[in-house]
């Protein structure tokens, strides 16, 4: 790790740890920023690095959310009665039950979407380009429609997640708990992804992006690697979903869990805005996007989705390379590319 990297990491770490005390009013917003960063990072595994532009990764987010809260409730109480009676009014989790349920919930929220990803990935990762994009779009929306029709998890009305136990501290402690959990998750996600990009796996998925047929001709089992990439991203997305569901406290099929037109698009946009196919791009993209989005939401209240549509169009037309992509073009030597100084000055003289 170079000196510059250490400075950047420690700055982010200090900001992450001290943010709840420095900006107590924005605690929830910064927690959501960490969740959005996870979404962008995981999208970039297939979208940027593997070249499989998915519109349906929101599926794993929603599945994780539902699985997490179903496990949390189902471990101690009958799930159907919970959803039928509006949940928290009749049943109460004790403190130990709450944390026990939450831990198991998060574990399952990671594992179940990963299994789902492996199963459907085998079917649809053989599609390429826009067929893959539209197919995943269809899956994401179908999942929302199906979840809205299942009575056990509250159908269209959605379900409440277990409330914070009364015994220990109030809402202040709750928001801090979720803040640090989100920060921890984003750190773990970032370093795991950073690690796998440095291994052979990272090289292979980049080879798949550049030319899948040639990668296959070189003897790589591309399907295996594609599924692994998809599973990794589903695992972290599921955990992020479980966290998000608990943080909001209420799950609804089409607006929160399988929100294809908000979070489903946000994750693509953030990765593109930051620069897809880079490690830091999604992180920067998420931060910039979140700040812009909150600004829009405040200034254009009621018009926010119009602004969002316009923002999508502007980003893809004018910044398809993203922020980091732009820097990379401008200063290639900072991105590990060897630049011949003589060549460069010669080009300048020519122009």
């Amino acid at each position, binding site marked *: 790790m170079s000196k510059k990297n250490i400075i950047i990491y420690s700055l982010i770490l200090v900001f992450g740890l001290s943010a709840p005390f420095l900006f107590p009013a924005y605690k929830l917003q910064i927690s959501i920023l960490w969740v959005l960063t996870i979404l962008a990072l995981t999208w970039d595994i297939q979208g940027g690095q593997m070249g499989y532009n998915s519109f349906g990764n929101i599926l794993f987010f929603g599945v994780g959310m539902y699985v997490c809260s179903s496990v949390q409730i189902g471990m101690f109480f009958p799930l159907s009665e919970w959803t039928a009676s509006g949940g928290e009014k009749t049943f109460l989790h004790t403190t130990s039950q709450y944390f026990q349920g939450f831990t198991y919930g998060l574990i399952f929220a990671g594992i179940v979407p990963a299994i789902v990803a492996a199963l459907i990935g085998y079917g649809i990762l053989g599609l390429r380009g826009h067929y893959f994009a539209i197919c995943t779009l269809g899956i994401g929306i179908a999942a929302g429609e199906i979840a809205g029709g299942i009575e056990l998890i509250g159908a269209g009305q959605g379900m409440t997640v277990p409330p914070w136990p009364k015994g220990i501290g109030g809402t202040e402690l709750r928001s801090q708990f979720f803040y640090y959990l989100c920060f921890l998750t984003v750190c773990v996600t970032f370093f795991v992804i950073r690690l796998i990009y440095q291994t052979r796996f990272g090289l292979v998925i980049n080879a798949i992006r550049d030319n899948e047929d040639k990668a296959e001709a070189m003897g790589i089992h591309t399907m295996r690697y594609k599924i692994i990439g998809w599973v990794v991203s589903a695992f972290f997305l599921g955990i992020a979903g479980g966290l998000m569901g608990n943080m909001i406290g209420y799950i609804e099929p089409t607006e929160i869990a399988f929100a294809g037109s908000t979070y489903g698009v946000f994750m693509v946009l953030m990765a593109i805005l930051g620069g897809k196919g880079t490690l830091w791009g999604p992180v920067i993209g998420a931060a910039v996007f979140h700040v812009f989005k909150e600004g829009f939401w405040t200034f254009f209240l009621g018009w926010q*989705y119009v602004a969002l549509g316009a923002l999508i169009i502007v980003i893809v037309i004018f910044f398809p390379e993203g922020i980091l992509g732009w820097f990379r073009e401008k200063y290639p030597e900072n991105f590990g590319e060897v630049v011949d100084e003589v060549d460069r000055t010669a080009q300048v003289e020519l122009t």
Partner: protein
Amino acid sequence: MDFLIFKAPILMVQASMDGILLGVLFALVAYGMALQWGVMNIINIAQGELVIMGGYIAYFMYTAGIPPAFGVIVSPIIMYFIGWSLYKTIINRVVERDMFISILATFGISILTQQLMNFVFGADVVVAQSNFGTTMLFDYSVTLPNAKIFSALVSIVFAVALVLYMKKSKLGRAIRATSQNQRAAKILGVDTEKVYAATFGINAALCGVAGSLIAITFTLHPYIGLPYTVRSFMIVIIAGLGNLPAVALSGIGLGVFEEFADYILGTEFRIAAVFLLLVVILVYRRFKLSRKREYLK
């Protein structure tokens, strides 16, 4: 099996008739998509929103006191210009780029138009009454609203007119030439920019026709555009680009499938059934092609 449709077989006739009349409409939208996909090589996610927008034009006429059936004439004219200006402002910047960029850009257009329609017309479900009455068949056991029959006939008329136009007129030939080989067409003096704009306009006009027919036969809502996009995408990938009989057939097939799914699974799973059918078809074709070491491209 405890389904109503198997207990009363006459419902199957009802579902099939509904499905056929609905499928003709889907085929019209899908033909627009196939045209534009073949010529410009972009997939328009905002296709469904164009349909709904066309429907709202008919609905607007209805609220102004004009019979909404005239929407089939007014709507395509307005939609042609909307499509043309969409091309000139946004699509021309993404048409030469990566397919993913154009999908995302049209997705942006889709969100934008959804929300604008929501502001202008409200989020309520609306319907434009055509007052065409209904036709009863088989001793009053099968009901067919005349509006649906009218809409199917109008769709067929427009489809035939479009095919003739593409065959005979100068612009139609230029469009077909561009879709076969864009470079060669350019060399031979076709203004491809103009062709693209016209294609997008014609596509929007077809959506306008379909939308105004949907306004009088079904319901309108700002957020139901995406299923129409997915349906037309599905029809196009089954039928191939620019093969009108196949487009019509698979449109009708999809319509019948949907009506049956509606009866068997229940209305709440109708949209889910459409989206899952798309996934099933794509996965089926993928496994079929992968035996030959090929893939959908």
